[in-house]
């Protein structure tokens, strides 16, 4: 068969370099001019051994010159102290890291009001979660994978708090999404993107059911595409309390399904992407019967019928608080379905400025605008769909506990 290969190669020509991965210039070094609102908002709790100053040393100067918090490990390697929360995978291992640097947490939130939105939206510190994968084989449309090989590097950060009532009603969450593929697809988008309808959640065990959970903050939050699929007490009853074999993962799994877009003035879509961010072990579920509407899965482990069963088994009947490092529900088992990555920017330019929602993209900065990067490319013909990132990872670590 070697001869067949040689013969076929006669007319098929030697394969040329197939790597057209786009590259964004590394961020300009900007002198620090102040602190972003997101900086310095974390303070240690009674279980955390790191002082705030150590935590705040993990910071990055954003493109605007403000100092933002950024990724750090759960345990400070210099002192060994613990922060009690984690931000997912260390972004420095991503092939895209050299182009984008440390990810500023809260950059889009910072400019919401300045863009004329009319209200602020700030998010807590612990909810920022990073995930990435290098050289991911992509699915190419319907049938294209039989012939084509497209791989992508993807580096994402979503603010996905799964410990409080915030996401029951609030649909605006910051996402930083960076993708580079060998077919020329590439963009770096930072958005405060509305996920699903404001004030409403979708029931995880019955996705046809939408529950009005209250008023969003801010109240003028626009409805977005996608949805926030969140567990409710009904799901807990169905799949844990009343099930012959309790399955916490099946009851509690959250899926935040983004419909992210960068649109030019006039509405033309330059970029669209729709990753699903999934969490298997949130430390809360929606229970309208409770004050604050927040139920705690770990409290169920105190029930005699659930002791030593499924996710409660490691506790061996021990009762722990919802924010104990021993709790099996800390929001550390997460993964991301990458899904579609569409670019329609064949004529450029590569640098666009948008409002924090990704709208009104222009080629020059304007008040409240943030910088986006999009490769000069149109991948309509490839219709790239991504794989899963982080399915086998668990971000639990020393001292990690809810809220995380």
């Amino acid at each position, binding site marked *: *068969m070697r001869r*067949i*290969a040689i*013969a*076929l*190669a*006669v*007319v*098929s*020509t030697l*394969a*040329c370099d*197939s790597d*057209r991965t786009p590259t964004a210039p590394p961020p300009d070094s900007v002198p620090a001019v102040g602190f972003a609102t997101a900086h310095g908002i974390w303070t240690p709790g009674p279980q955390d051994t790191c002082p705030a100053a150590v935590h705040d040393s993990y910071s990055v100067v954003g493109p605007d010159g403000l100092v933002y918090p950024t990724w750090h490990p759960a345990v400070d390697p210099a002192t060994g102290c613990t922060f009690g929360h984690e931000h997912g995978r260390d972004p420095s291992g991503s092939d895209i890291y050299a182009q984008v640097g440390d990810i500023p947490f809260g950059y889009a939130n910072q400019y919401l009001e300045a863009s004329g939105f009319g209200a602020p939206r700030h998010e807590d510190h612990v909810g920022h979660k990073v995930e990435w994968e290098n050289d991911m084989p992509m699915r*190419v*449309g*319907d*049938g*294209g*994978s*039989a*012939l*084509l*090989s*497209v791989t992508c590097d993807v580096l994402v950060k979503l603010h996905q708090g799964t410990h409080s009532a915030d996401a029951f009603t609030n649909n605006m969450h910051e996402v930083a999404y960076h993708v580079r593929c*060998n*077919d*020329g697809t590439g963009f770096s988008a930072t958005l405060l993107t509305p996920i699903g309808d404001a004030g409403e959640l979708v029931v995880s065990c019955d996705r046809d059911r939408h529950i009005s959970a209250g008023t969003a903050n801010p109240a003028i939050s626009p409805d977005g595409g996608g949805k926030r699929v969140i567990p409710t007490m009904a799901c807990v009853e169905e799949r844990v309390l009343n099930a012959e074999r309790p399955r916490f993962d099946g009851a509690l799994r959250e899926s935040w399904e983004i419909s992210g877009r960068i649109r030019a003035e006039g509405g033309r879509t330059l970029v669209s992407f729709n990753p699903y961010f999934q969490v298997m072990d949130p430390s809360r579920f929606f229970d309208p019967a409770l004050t604050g509407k927040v139920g705690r899965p770990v409290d169920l482990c105190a029930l005699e019928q659930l002791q030593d069963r499924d996710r409660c088994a490691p506790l061996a009947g021990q009762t722990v608080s919802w924010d104990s490092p021993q709790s099996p529900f800390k929001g550390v088992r997460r993964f991301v379905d990458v899904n579609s990555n569409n670019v329609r920017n064949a004529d450029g330019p590569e640098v666009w400025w948008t409002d924090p929602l990704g709208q009104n993209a222009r080629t020059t900065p304007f008040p409240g605008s943030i910088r986006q990067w999009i490769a000069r*490319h*149109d*991948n*309509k*013909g*490839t*219709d790239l769909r991504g794989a899963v990132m982080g399915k086998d990872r668990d971000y639990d670590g020393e001292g990690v506990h809810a809220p995380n």
Partner: protein
Amino acid sequence: MHRIYIAPMYVGFLAWLLAILALTTPVAGQLTEERADRFWWDAGLGFTSVQVTCRLCTGDIDSGPSIDLAVGTWASPRVAVGVELGGWTHLESDVRERVLRAGLSGRFTPSLESGLHFIGGLGWMGYRAEDFHYSTVNVVVGAGWELPVSSGWSVGNRLVFDAAPFGTLKNDGVSVPGGSVRTGALRLSVYVAPR
């Protein structure tokens, strides 16, 4: 590293074809001038390996069964012309790939004392895998050997190379960036034809 898949049935098939070639000797008077006035046809089954290359292509060599049908007339005792249709299929990761061919075909027999003949042709090749497809000009070159097995029938085999260098891969009608495809296919088949 190209992946080449050869099912055991294909190995046996190839061995059989080689045996035919090895055992076949020149047959005096097999091909006579009578056929100059006759139409001809043949139908073949075979095994085809296809490689598609482009900037984003895997470059894998995929192999699968193929079928060929040809009909034509003898332009002279040594030269046959006709039209040929053929198809090939392969299942790749749950995706069914298909290649169809159609074109003009010519066959030249250097010696009437031998079953050896050379094949050339020009036509069309179309590829499809679900929404992905292309069409292109196809050039055919090859050789075959025909052996009479009865007063009415001959069996032959042929080794043919298809070269289709000018395809543009499309996804549901939209051109794929980096999708200028070149296709090479090696067909090994056995056919039957009336004498």
